[in-house]
C-alpha cells in the first residue's frame, strides 16, 4: 500500500550544475520501495504550480527509513523543491509504479543512463551487486561536470564508463554509440536503461540489432501518478498485435495509424500504456518510439 502524507527533509543539497539531492525520512514509504519506482512530491502547499512532481528513487536506505531523490532544477516546481531547507516537511506519495525486475538469465548486464536518467539506476546497481551479477555502467551527459554519481558508483566497486558530448570525460559522443562499441567486446546478456526518449530510441536501435534484451525506464509528463488520468501514456506493442495489410484504405483506429489507400504497408498495432502505473519500467521489446 503506497504511503501518502508528510515527511521530513533530512538533507537537500546541490550536487551538480543544476542537480540537487534530497533525502527524506519516511520509513512507511521506504520499507515498500523497490529499485525503479518513483515518488510523487508536492513542491509547496499552494495551488500554483499545481501538480506534484514525479521523482525516481535514487537511494533506498531500508535501515534508516530514508529515500534519496536526485533531481534537476528545470522549472518552477523543482526550483521550489530545491529551496526546501533541512527539517522542512514535504508532502510525498509512494512508492509508485513498477520498477526493475532482474531476470534469472541476467549474469552480465549493461546499466545505461543518460542525463538525469541515471538517478533511478543506483538502487538497481546495488541490487545487481547484491545478487553478484556482473555489471558495466555506461553514463552519458553533455560534459564532465554533468556526469552525476561516478564517485558513488566507484565506491561500490562497479565498472563505470562515461560518454560526454564534448569528450571532457570518457568517450566523446553519445552513450548509445559507446554502448554499440562495448556490446561487441563485453557481450552482455541483458541491459537496463533510463534517459530521455531520443536516447532510449537510439539505444533500442543498437540493442535490437545486437539481439540484446532489457528493460527501459521512461519519462513522461505526469498528472495523477496512480493510473487514473491517462496523461502519461507511452506507445507499446499491442497484446493482440495485428498485422494490417493496407490497400483498402482501412483505418486501424480512429486516430493515428491510418493507412493510406493504394500502398502496401504493414503496421504494428499499438496500445497506450500508463507510464506511472504500468511502468515506468517496460520491457525493451514492448515500447514503440515514434519517428
Amino acid at each position, binding site marked *: 500500500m503506497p504511503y501518502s502524507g508528510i515527511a521530513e527533509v533530512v538533507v537537500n543539497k546541490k550536487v551538480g550544475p543544476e542537480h540537487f539531492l534530497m533525502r527524506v525520512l519516511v520509513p512507511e514509504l521506504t520499507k515498500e520501495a523497490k529499485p525503479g519506482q518513483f515518488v510523487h512530491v508536492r513542491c509547496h502547499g499552494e495551488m500554483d504550480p499545481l501538480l*506534484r512532481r514525479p521523482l525516481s528513487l535514487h537511494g533506498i536506505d531500508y535501515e534508516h527509513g530514508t529515500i534519496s531523490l536526485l533531481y534537476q532544477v528545470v522549472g518552477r516546481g523543482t526550483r521550489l523543491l530545491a529551496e526546501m531547507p533541512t527539517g522542512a516537511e514535504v508532502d510525498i506519495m509512494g512508492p509508485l509504479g513498477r520498477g526493475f525486475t532482474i531476470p534469472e538469465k541476467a549474469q552480465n548486464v549493461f546499466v545505461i543512463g543518460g542525463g538525469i536518467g541515471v538517478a533511478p539506476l543506483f538502487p538497481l546497481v546495488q541490487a545487481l551487486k547484491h545478487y553478484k551479477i556482473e555489471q558495466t555502467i555506461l553514463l552519458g551527459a553533455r560534459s564532465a561536470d554533468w556526469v552525476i554519481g561516478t564517485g558513488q558508483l566507484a565506491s561500490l566497486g562497479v565498472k563505470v564508463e562515461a560518454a560526454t558530448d564534448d569528450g571532457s570525460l570518457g568517450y566523446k559522443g553519445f552513450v548509445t554509440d559507446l554502448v554499440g562499441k562495448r556490446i561487441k567486446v563485453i557481450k552482455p546478456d541483458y541491459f537496463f536503461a533510463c534517459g530521455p526518449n531520443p536516447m532510449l530510441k537510439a539505444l533500442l536501435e543498437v540493442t535490437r540489432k545486437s539481439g540484446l534484451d532489457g528493460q527501459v525506464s521512461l519519462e513522461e509528463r505526469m498528472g495523477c501518478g496512480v493510473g487514473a488520468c491517462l496523461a502519461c501514456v507511452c506507445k507499446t506493442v499491442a497484446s493482440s498485435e495485428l498485422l494490417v495489410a493496407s490497400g483498402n484504405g482501412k483505418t486501424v483506429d480512429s486516430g493515428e495509424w491510418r493507412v493510406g489507400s493504394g500502398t502496401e504497408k504493414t503496421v504494428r498495432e499499438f496500445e497506450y500504456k500508463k507510464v506511472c502505473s504500468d511502468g515506468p519500467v517496460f520491457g525493451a521489446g514492448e515500447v514503440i518510439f515514434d519517428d
Partner: protein
Amino acid sequence: MINLAVDLGGLKMKNPVTTASGTFGFGPEYAPYVDLNRLGAITVKGTTLEPRKGNATPRIAETPAGILNCIGLQNPGVDEFIAKSLPYLRKYDTPVIVNIAGNSTDDYAEITRRLTAADGVSALEVNISCPNVKQGGMVFGTNCAAASEVIRVVRQNTTLPVIAKLSPNVTDITEIACGVADAGADALALINTLLGMKIDIKARKPVLGNIMGGLSGPAIRPVAVRIVWQVAQAVKLPILGMGGITTAEDALEFILAGATAIAVGTANFVNPRATMDVLDGIERYMRDNGVKDVGELVGAAWQ
C-alpha cells in the same frame, strides 16, 4: 444529527461528494487513499461503445493554478467496463455514475442500453462536452438542438437517472440547459473543461499533442461558480457542480450557488484524499453553523 444525503435527479447519494469523470479512473486507482464507501457516488472515466486509444502525447500541460489536458477519451470500451470494472465497483456500497460519450446518437443509444442492462450502474452522465475528440463530444454540447437530441435518445433507452454534462464553451449555457431539461434530463453536470492552449516558446509549437485541451483546476473555479449560479436560477433541475474544487470551502461556494451535489476533479491529482477532506469540511461547516440538512444550503446565496 446532520443530514448529508441528497437526491440528484433520482440518484440517491449518502452525501453530496462525488468524483469528476476522468480524474478518478474506474475506482481502484484511488482505493489505497480513499475509502470508496464514504463517497456519495463514484463517477468513472468517460466510456464509449468501442475501445478508444485516445490522443497523441503530450496529453497534459501545467498552467497557472490549473492544467490543460487532451486525453481524448482513452477507455477500454463499454463491454470491458461492464465485464471488468463493474464487478469491482459492486463490492462498494456507493452508487456508480457512468460517464458516456459517442460519435453519433446511435452510439449513445446503444451504450445506454448496455449500461442500463448491466448490474451496478446507478446513473448515466452524458458527456456532450468533451473538447478533446474530433467527432461527437463538444460538437453535440455546443448546439442546443444536437444536445437535446442526444439527451432524448438516452432518455428513451434508460430508466436510470440521466445527468447531462454541459460545456462552458458556449455563448449562453442556460439555453442549452433548458433544451436538455425539456429533452428529459434529470440533472445537469456543470461544468466540463474550458477549451484552452499553451505554446512552447522555445520550440515555437503548441505544447499539447492535440494542440488544444481542456482547462481544469482552481483556475476555472470562478467561471464554474458563475455558471452554476446562472443555470440554477434558469432551470429547475438539480445540479452536480464541479470546476476547480479543492477544499470544502470551494465546494460550499458551488452548493450555495445552487449545486445539489459536487464533484472533485483535478484536486485528486494534487491531494489523493481531496474528496474525503471536502466531505469532512462540509460536515464541519454544517456543525459550526447549525445547518441540519445540506439541502438548506443549496442555492442559499440567491434564494
